[in-house]
């Protein structure tokens, strides 16, 4: 196979991936009550495209399989076959089979020759089409670009008002037209009067039809034979276009000898197929390079600004305006480049309805999935890593959260449980929430299980929230038996670690008997951060602005010691624990003014804490640099950046701080006055 063909193979697999995702989404959305022609058409087109490409690359088994799939969809869209639940299931399984067959080819390990034979047979029986295999490579030949005279016609079909009088109907006419090729139509309903004035035996609609076909005008006119005297029919032939409504089938069926002819056809086809609304496909590597370079640009610009600040004013003034402009453009460029990598979470959410359907069915539960905010955009790398945790959490809700229909009825709930999956942007972060109206977390069971496994000391007393979040501890599972769905006890802690690895947090809120609500909070982007630079002792650190709630300078009467080993502060009635970084990080010569300590209140998940600092140095946008590869991970530090002066500055990992505080006593002499209990 030539190199060019190999390159197209790669593109083919990517596009097939998209087509299959789309197909699965549509198949999942099909239901026996609401199934319209458009859906069938769309699924048909997807199968058709895959078939064509498979043919071009010689994947015969895939071609045969998708042909049967295509034939089944054809029967459905023509109305010759009625959609039933078993058929929906068969189509879903078929789509899975195609995915696996394509994956096999992609990985160089094709499935065995009779893979999916039973599904193939079932589809063939349904379509009563006999032997699609024999017909298969030939069947589309008449559609081939080289020999057929494929053209596009615009047909305007306007029945007269008394059209129905002799029993004429528009639908059969349109159906027969559709058989000639690929048809799209628009109906004009302007003539339709309000319901009160409408006469049911008067025809009000007219149609504009676009038909791509090999048939000539005579054949098209034949469709209108019986109605031509009662309707105005105008057929105009459009200019011959090789790539109108391009499908990969087109280049695939061109004569195989001319790779040169294939190449432009394939590229226009691919370009047209993917440029439905003017988009292009770009290698992720190119985007990463772009992001990195822009990141370095931001750092360089910060250095220039810093130098300018240090220059004597009379020289600085000459440059200030230009440097300000530079800063502004750099910021704009940065925002634009970050936006390039953002994608709607839809692609991750799309797999969930199917997951819910299958898992609920497996467990005998009735559950509907409501999704909101699917168009919320997130960085591409985040999307990829989101799939696993999300899948697990939804499985968890289905398995442990939502009760069986009987239990629900017994508890005066609707038989059908609801899981709501939503995504939203809030203050520089993405929030993904999964809530269910199930049984909530069984706190007594969780607590006893945790004590039993030694995850917490036997005499520990915990708040409701703390108990709920025990489920995120490693090795935790309250399932009595390990089901294939969940319950192996490796779940929630891996979920938490995955999410924290993305720089996010996850926590759960639950009401027993009513349901649970999981919240995942992720940074909008993984590369650039708005940070607040603070000084403690001689060290500088950066706190992500999105974590900062407020800054405080309380008098020492607001600070209370609790049980002799931790300090808290009362902020407008809320008790917030105090973190002495000088202690936790062993920073020498931190000089906290005992009378008026300066603190930054931060939030991690739904927990707040107040970090004591010596000085606030200012806000800056910084480029995140990972040092893990070279220096390993450091508790309390998420990453580093390079400030305008060229020095490395560390970015705090707020999530870690709470754990790091345990066991640290406040500095002595304590600036607080001890009280037996906080107010």
């Amino acid at each position, binding site marked *: 196979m030539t190199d060019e063909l190999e390159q197209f193979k790669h593109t083919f697999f990517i596009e097939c991936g998209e087509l299959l995702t789309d197909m699965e989404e549509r198949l999942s959305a099909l239901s026996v009550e609401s199934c319209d022609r458009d859906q069938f058409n769309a699924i048909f087109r997807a199968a058709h495209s895959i078939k064509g490409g498979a043919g071009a690359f010689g994947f015969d088994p895939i071609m045969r399989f998708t042909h049967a799939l295509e034939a089944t969809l054809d029967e459905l869209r023509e109305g010759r076959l009625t959609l039933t639940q078993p058929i929906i299931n068969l189509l879903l399984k078929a789509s899975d089979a195609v995915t696996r067959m394509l994956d096999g080819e992609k990985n160089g390990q094709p499935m065995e020759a009779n893979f999916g034979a039973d599904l193939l047979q079932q589809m063939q029986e349904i379509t009563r089409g006999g032997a699609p295999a024999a017909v298969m490579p030939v069947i589309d030949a008449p559609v081939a670009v080289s020999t057929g005279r494929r053209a596009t016609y615009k047909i305007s079909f306007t029945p007269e008002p008394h059209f129905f009088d002799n029993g004429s109907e528009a639908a059969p006419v349109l159906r027969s037209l559709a058989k000639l090729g690929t048809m799209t139509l628009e109906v004009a309903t302007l003539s339709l009067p309000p319901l009160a004035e409408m006469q049911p035996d008067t025809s009000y609609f007219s149609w504009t039809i676009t038909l791509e076909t090999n048939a000539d005008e005579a054949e098209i006119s034949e469709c209108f034979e019986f109605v031509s005297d009662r309707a105005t029919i105008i057929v105009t032939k459009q200019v011959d276009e090789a790539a109108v409504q391009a499908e990969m089938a087109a280049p695939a069926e061109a004569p195989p000898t001319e790779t040169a002819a294939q190449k432009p056809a394939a590229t226009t086809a691919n370009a047209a197929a993917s440029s439905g609304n003017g988009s292009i496909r770009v290698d992720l590597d190119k985007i990463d390079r772009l992001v990195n370079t822009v990141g370095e640009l931001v750092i360089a610009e910060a250095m220039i600004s810093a130098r300018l600040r240090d220059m004597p004013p009379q020289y600085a003034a000459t440059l200030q305006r230009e440097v300000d402009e530079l800063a502004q453009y750099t910021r704009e460029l940065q925002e634009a480049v970050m936006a390039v990598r953002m994608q709607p979470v839809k692609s991750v959410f799309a797999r969930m309805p199917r997951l819910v359907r299958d898992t609920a069915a497996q467990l005998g539960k009735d559950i509907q999935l409501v999704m909101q905010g699917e168009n919320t955009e997130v960085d591409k790398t985040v999307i990829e890593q989101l799939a696993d945790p999300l899948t697990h959490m939804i499985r968890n809700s289905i398995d442990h959260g939502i009760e069986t229909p009987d239990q629900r009825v017994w508890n005066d709930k609707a038989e059908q449980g609801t899981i709501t999956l939503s995504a939203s942007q809030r203050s520089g972060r993405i929030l993904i929430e999964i809530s269910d109206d199930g049984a909530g977390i069984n706190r007594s069971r969780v607590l006893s299980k945790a004590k039993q496994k030694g995850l917490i000391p036997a005499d520990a007393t915990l708040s409701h929230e703390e108990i709920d979040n025990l489920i995120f501890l490693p090795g935790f599972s309250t399932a009595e038996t390990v089901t294939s769905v969940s319950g192996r006890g490796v779940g929630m802690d891996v979920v938490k670690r995955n999410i924290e690895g993305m720089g996010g947090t996850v926590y759960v809120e639950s009401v027993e008997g009513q349901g649970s609500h999981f919240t995942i909070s992720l940074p909008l982007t993984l590369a650039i951060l708005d940070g607040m630079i603070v000084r403690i002792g001689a060290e500088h650190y950066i706190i992500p602005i999105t974590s900062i709630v407020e800054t405080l300078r309380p008098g020492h009467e607001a600070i209370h010691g609790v049980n002799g080993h931790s300090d808290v502060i009362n902020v407008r009635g809320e008790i917030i624990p105090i973190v002495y970084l000088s202690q936790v990080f062993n920073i020498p010569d931190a000089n906290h003014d005992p009378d008026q300590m300066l603190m930054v209140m931060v939030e991690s998940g739904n927990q707040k804490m107040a970090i004591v600092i010596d000085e606030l140095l200012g806000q800056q946008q910084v480029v995140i640099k990972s*040092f893990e590869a070279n*220096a390993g991970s450091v508790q309390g530090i998420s990453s580093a950046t390079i400030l305008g002066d060229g*020095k490395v500055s*560390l970015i705090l990992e707020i999530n870690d701080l709470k754990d790091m505080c345990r066991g640290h006593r406040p500095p002595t002499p304590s600036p607080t006055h001890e009280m037996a209990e906080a107010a």
Partner: protein
Amino acid sequence: MTELSSDMSQFLAFAIDKAEYCVPIMTVREINGWSPATRLPNAPEYMRGVINLRGSIVPIFDLRARFTGELTTEDKTHVVIILAVEARNFGLLVDSVSDILTVGADCIKPAPSESTDAAADFIGGLLMIEERIVALLNVHNLFDLNAVETIQQEVA
């Protein structure tokens, strides 16, 4: 270790106090002067911090502190050797760099196994050149990432 001819290898030699050490030349990325490093919290004493090496973050380890526990009082005359080992980059703070040694395999002797001082774990061999004995450092387990993490957790 790359071989030049049948069994010759090259090493970069450096000194800490009077003792001489060396590392395989192919692991050496560059040699810089000392520049202030940003300390990492709760890091072992010999971990002096991280520096900005043309955009990437590189940790600097104080070899004297690693071997003897005594911190180097760094100044402009000290040298940082940047090594690249298995996709990790890190720097060694040493007193001075001397020369490049080209030796045959027969000049490399195994490290003495009875030695009990801390440095013994990191010595991969001894180079005998005329009157000099130069210790070959085992760069792989000098600063094992996991070891650093474990120590951090103990300290915390």
